[in-house]
């Protein structure tokens, strides 16, 4: 692994950007739809909507560990959404999603910044240990999934599917 990569693994801040061939208004609305959050973060956490713009997150760690928190999402402007965790979060975090028109006919550029503040100020290295996934991957994959959902109405999946293991099926 290169130095650059291991540095990235140490980051508690994660940033990713993606371009989606849709107007910002559509993407803004899709992001706020209750089922969207549970679908785009599924590689990382179970997200359940519990109230108007509040959601309960349960991230799984290795060896059966579980981390819980609740978030409140705000629409700051037509081009910006943000969330932050409420009190008593196992891993406090906040995120900001900014949208800008992409050049030509390419739609909208999305920039997502997420910052994790683990208890006791553990550095980012611990984040990837806690969740078994590096923060950068958490956000890049979420944006990939969001784009798929925005463009096609679905997210690519391969489970369940036939395989010569686990009794014949991948779950």
């Amino acid at each position: 692994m290169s130095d650059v990569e291991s540095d990235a693994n140490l980051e508690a801040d994660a940033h990713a950007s993606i371009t989606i061939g849709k107007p910002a208004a559509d993407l803004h609305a899709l992001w706020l739809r209750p089922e969207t959050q549970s679908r785009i973060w599924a590689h990382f956490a179970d997200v359940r909507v519990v109230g108007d713009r509040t959601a309960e997150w349960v991230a799984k760690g290795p060896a059966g560990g579980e981390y819980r928190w609740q978030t409140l999402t705000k629409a700051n402007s037509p081009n910006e959404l943000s969330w932050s965790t409420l009190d008593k979060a196992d891993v406090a975090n906040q995120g900001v999603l900014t949208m800008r028109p992409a050049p030509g006919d390419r739609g909208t550029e999305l920039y997502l910044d997420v910052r994790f503040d683990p208890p006791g100020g553990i550095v980012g290295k611990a984040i990837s240990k806690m969740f078994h996934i590096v923060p950068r991957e958490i956000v890049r994959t979420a944006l990939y999934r969001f784009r798929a959902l925005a463009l096609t109405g679905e997210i690519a999946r391969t489970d369940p599917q036939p395989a010569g293991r686990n009794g014949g099926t991948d779950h």
Partner: protein
Amino acid sequence: MRALCWNGVNDLRVETVSDPEIINPSDVILKVRLSTTCGSDLHLIDGLIPTMREGDVLGHEFMGEIVDVGREVTKVKRGDRVVVPSFISCGKCWYCQHDLYSLCDTTHPKPELQEPLLGYPTAGIYAYSHAFGGYSGAHAEYVRVPFADTDCFLVPDGVADDAALFISDAAPTGFMGADFCNIHQGDVIAVWGCGGVGLMAQQGAMILGAERVIAIDKYPERLAQAEAFGAIPLDFTKVDVIEALQELTGGRGPDACIDAVGMEADGTGVQKVYDGVKQALHLETDRGAALRQAMLAVRKGGTLSILGVYGVMDKFPLGLIMNKGITVRTAQQHGQAYVDRLLEYTQRGELTPAALATHRFSLEDSPKGYHMFKHKEDGCLRSVFVP
């Protein structure tokens, strides 16, 4: 159902696995009528492509009948006889809309596995390792096909199953390779490899108006098939390929060279020993004998069209490309851009993909079929499996 599973290097077994089911609303389930071997599978079987998992169902070149449809599917229906390209494409993203289907932006279920290798994830593909999506393959009784409205192509009457089959992968790949050559009147095209892909590239180049097509390989029966298609055969073990190509082009060199060989290329002499040792020591997983030869042979300012699959090549003579002003075109096949057209050529008898179907096996005998295909026994060009 029964399916052919990869269990490690050179370890293929037919096993009982669960039936596929509809997962997403644009999916269909296909009852496989025919599936076939591809040179790309050899990279998996030889262990040259990482991120395979024991138990993965193989097979990415297939056709069949739709037996179940998801609720968003509108263009195809139960009972349709269809052929499906090997890359899974949504039809809605920027790449699909620019005919770059194998680069689709939405069909990779595990983008995090591939993005570190390539910078960005490609489309998912059936049965081609988890870095390429981990989709279950088609050497099985049934297979799930996502984005059916974009990826299922109705096979017209008059195109038999064993012709339609190759319009899944070998034919669009070869045809795309010829298309990359931007063929003009008088152009001479040389094709390295007379496997399914190379032969389809040769027929494609003729359809697109090449003056002359030269076919390079060492297997007599494959060279004979190339000749039957109208190409000039060259056995690279018997002639000096570079000299022969100059001889056939008045010293100009071919206007475009197509590599339909890939990383299992056979070399001759010192290069072969060197590449073999490196491969055995895992120093590099590529043996680029054919590709190097094509770069040397192509005329100045010509086109190099690369269809063969390569890994990470640490010795690549870039200076040849630069100093000769060569245009390089390459891609995994953008099948969806070509299938309708290829079905028409086939209906009119201009393209004859069924010629690739030299050997037929039941699905139960598919490991034997792969063995014959890999070792080119008994003139085997492609093994076709009937579930």
